[in-house]
């Protein structure tokens, strides 16, 4: 790890003396300044987001007419230099300033005349401390980066776990959660709830005729119609499995549900997806089974299963009746 040091002193003989000692330590670069202005410039203090340009600052407490304590305060007011140690150098007589120096953020001080052994030992400790601090800051940065990445990955996974990979609408897992949640809400508010089960007609023949890639494209287009036709915030469309889809319509009774079902049926017809081996139409069509419930009983798995079963039976009936149509079955 490279350590850069700044010496702020207006006396050239002091600068020479300190340079001579610092060169003997594990130091990459030694910078010198002799005025407050040059110091602020070298440290890039006007930029609050700067990276510190040095790792340790040795600062003479009285710089001619300029005051080292002021400089110390100014350096410490930049967040980038919060953890950069400042060591003050002071003549004996000025020790009254020490209290102010520590208050201004200095880490240590050395008295003039500088004694080699003491100087080397103190600076060396500061360098070791700075190296540890730098290593810690680097670790913290790395951890922060990793935790951001982890958070993003988790969000992505969470989304992936609830979205159907092919069509981009909700998947079966989210359907299971949503139907339960919406039924409970319907019971609390004493509202109706409708469920539409939708199945693409003659989809096996479609795949056999046009291939699976085209089949996937068909699924995507059907899904996008469902997405468009479920406009209210609580309306919910999901891929239930294979070529089967489901739509949950909270706060919706029979008439409203039939209207939306018809909307969907027409919407699919309007796609005009060619299907030459369909015995129903020249285009891709869907059959729909609708069921509505006024949830008065406790919502449990049994009730949820029954509702889905009713809609499924209605869907089966629609297929039996010749496909491309809607059948309604009341929930019993």
């Amino acid at each position: 790890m490279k350590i850069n040091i700044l010496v702020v002193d207006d006396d050239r003989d002091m600068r020479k003396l300190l340079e001579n000692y610092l060169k003997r330590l594990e130091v990459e670069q030694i910078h010198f300044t002799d005025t407050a202005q040059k110091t602020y410039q070298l440290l890039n203090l006007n930029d609050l987001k700067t990276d510190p340009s040095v790792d340790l600052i040795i600062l003479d407490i009285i710089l001619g007419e300029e005051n080292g304590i002021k400089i110390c305060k100014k350096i410490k007011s930049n967040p980038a230099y919060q953890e950069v140690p400042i060591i003050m150098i002071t003549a004996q007589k000025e020790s009254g300033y020490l209290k102010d120096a520590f208050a201004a953020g200095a880490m240590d001080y050395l008295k003039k005349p500088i004694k080699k052994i003491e100087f080397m030992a103190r600076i060396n400790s500061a360098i070791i401390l700075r190296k540890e601090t730098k290593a810690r800051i680097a670790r913290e940065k790395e951890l922060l980066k990793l935790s951001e990445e982890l958070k993003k990955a988790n969000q992505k996974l969470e989304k992936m776990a609830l979205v159907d990979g092919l069509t981009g609408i909700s998947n079966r897992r989210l359907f299971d959660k949503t139907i339960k949640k919406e039924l409970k809400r319907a019971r609390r508010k004493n509202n109706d709830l409708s469920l539409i089960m939708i199945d693409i007609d003659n989809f096996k023949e479609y795949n056999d005729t046009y291939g699976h890639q085209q089949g996937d494209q068909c699924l995507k287009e059907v899904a996008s119609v469902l997405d468009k036709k479920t406009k209210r915030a609580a309306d919910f469309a999901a891929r239930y499995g294979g070529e089967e889809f489901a739509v949950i319509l909270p706060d919706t009774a029979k008439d409203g549900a039939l209207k939306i079902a018809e909307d969907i049926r027409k919407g699919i017809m309007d796609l005009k997806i060619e299907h030459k081996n369909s015995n129903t139409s020249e285009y891709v069509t869907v059959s729909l089974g609708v069921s509505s419930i006024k949830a008065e009983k406790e919502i449990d798995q049994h009730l949820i299963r029954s509702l889905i079963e009713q809609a499924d039976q209605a869907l089966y009936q629609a297929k039996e009746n010749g496909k491309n149509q809607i059948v309604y079955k009341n929930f019993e």
Partner: protein
Amino acid sequence: MSKNIVYIDPDLEFLIPQFLENREEDRQRLEKLLQESEFDQIRIIGHSMKGSGGGYGFDYLTEIGSQIEKNAELKNKEEIKNLIDELRNYLDNLEIIYQKE
């Protein structure tokens, strides 16, 4: 006349000629400044000498620098003149021995 023998760390040997040249310069400036009664400038030179002298091993320079600083504050022209003479005497009769402490 007896020499002023000073023992200096060999690590600093290469810095000493320049350091002493700077002190000779200081002395000449002090004489000029004293004639002009520029006590503030005199004080700063005394202060610097006090700060660096002992660091190089010249404890006497720290001592005399300190006295120049004090007397500049008091604007004591007579005493400063004596101190400058003392400084010249000291610098003219220096003998340096480089040896480890």
